[in-house]
């Protein structure tokens, strides 16, 4: 009986000796480190599986025919799952662009925030004054603003432009954001080529500095 107890004590004793504890701690630490590394390595493919599929990320350009767009009209086309608007602005509509600036209605009248390629950094925000080409997505939370070209159609002072149905952001006819809107910046303009002779616009890619919404 006593012999048995001694044997048990012997087998217990080494378990608590400093050497064993150090070894056990080392093994625990190694297991923890290895386990974390393996878990981390597995997370990478798991998260990447959630990224856009090859099919979804395949890029494409969109060509828009300008022939049917008469002065004062607008056309919206799809480009990379985003609506792109083309407006054929009349001289009266172009005149409102100066008026909004003179009345001090705009947050960024001179387009200092790079929401458009450098060649569109002007009050028209386009390559050719009459033709506005831009992404029709509100800079606030990605809704599609309504086109409201008529004066006084949104508010008595309204000169024409875009009004977002979601949170009430307002833009002028160059899609420059009007003060008091929740949207921080003007609507984004993508990179595009326009050929007036052939009457077509090719939207090529997103202007990288522009903030869509």
């Amino acid at each position, binding site marked *: 009986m006593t012999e048995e107890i001694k044997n048990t004590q012997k087998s217990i004793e080494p378990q608590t000796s400093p050497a064993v504890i150090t070894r056990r701690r080392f093994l625990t630490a190694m297991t923890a480190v290895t386990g974390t590394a393996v878990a981390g390595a597995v997370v990478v493919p798991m*998260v990447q599986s959630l*990224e856009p599929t090859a099919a979804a990320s395949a890029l494409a350009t969109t060509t828009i025919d300008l022939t049917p767009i008469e002065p004062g009209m607008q056309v919206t086309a799809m480009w990379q*799952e985003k609506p792109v608007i083309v407006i054929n602005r009349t001289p009266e509509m172009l005149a409102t662009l100066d008026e909004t600036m003179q009345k001090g209605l705009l947050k960024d009248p001179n387009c200092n925030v790079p929401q458009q390629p450098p060649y569109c950094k002007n009050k028209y925000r386009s390559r050719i004054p009459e033709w506005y080409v831009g992404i029709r997505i509100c800079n606030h939370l990605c809704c599609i603003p309504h086109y409201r070209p008529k004066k006084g159609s949104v508010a008595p002072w309204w000169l024409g432009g875009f009004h977002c149905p979601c949170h009430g952001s307002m833009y002028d006819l160059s899609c420059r954001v009007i003060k008091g809107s929740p949207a*921080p910046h003007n609507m984004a303009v993508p990179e595009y080529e326009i050929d007036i002779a052939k009457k077509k616009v090719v939207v090529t890619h997103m202007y990288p500095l522009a903030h869509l919404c």
Partner: protein
Amino acid sequence: MGLKEWVDKRSPLPDMWREHMAEYYAPKNFNIFYYAGSLLLLMVALQFLSGFLVLAHYVPSAEDAYNSVFGIMYDVKYGWLMQYMHVDGSSLIFVLLYVHMARGMIYGSYKAPRELVWIIGYILYLIFMAEAFFGYVLPYSNLSYWAGTVITSLLKSIPFIGNWVTIIARGGPGISGDTIGRFMALHVTLVFILIIGLIAVHILYLHKVGSNNPDGIDIKENKDSNGHPLDGIPFHPYYTVKDLSGFGVWLFIFAAVIFYAPTFHHIFLERTMSTPANALKSLPDVTPPWYLSPFYAMLRSIPNKNGGILLMLFAVLVPFLMPWLDRNPVRSTRFRPVTRIMLIIFFLNFFLLAWVGEQPPLPKYFFPERLGSVIYVGFFLLLPIVTMFEPTRKPPARVRYRAH
């Protein structure tokens, strides 16, 4: 040895039954507000059932999702019933959640030692919001599409990784069939399992510290010779039977909604749910479901994107701090008239915000939006000050109740 004895020796269930049902002592003076908790359990079970049955017919793809939902409504036998159970059930869950939380605020159930019960419960409320959001994107109606776009674009405000997170959430630059796939996976597996797990945790944490009651006093301070609280009764059979009769009444209400007002005047099921998704046509006004609209009204009340999002985040997260914002040691507002009046104003204001959040974004609503936001934030800012100095009556030593 009988079979029951044989099983009991090997099973943990008899002990659990005793701990959580037969010998869990709950205060005698629960009132009608205390039905909400057990009704929520019932509703989650019914959501699982109806959800399982509609999932059996649902097709998660951009092309077929919308038509498959209409197929459930018109072609599947009793599909309309399962569909309306699921849709109205989600709104009624939020009705019950708000009653349950309001009861906790009125009787101070978030106060020590129940802070963790409150926090776990509030996390559950947030997860229910996520579950509801993923759910209403799935039919791929135009409202689904635009609500999905607006809500996921909130993620873009996360510093540095916002764009990447948004793309991961959507599975592409915009809402598409890929989004439906991952939202369905979240809705039926991850988020649902979180809800079930957290409900269990919520109840276990509650049973560790014991239930509060309308008088807000500690029933464990007065015990009989057996160590049972004098003001408590065993949950089973007393409250199980009481809750079952509550189930009966509630199911009548639930059935009345399903059969006579399934869309509840287009509050539970919006009109814009019945047009298919269209990426080129955002809705005349994208308003959230009623249960999220108070927060949405606060988002809109600041004409600055990140400012609005920060206010909304603050509004959503600040109730976590309730246990520490309330400095009064007395729990129930039965004895704290000032806090009670503040709470009533807070609840009415929540309705004001819910109403204004459903209105189109016109300048004439700016004033009620901002007033509502100021009252909402003001309540939480005033709470620590008021509760330190408010006049407080002394709570009774024993709970007050009328036996039936």
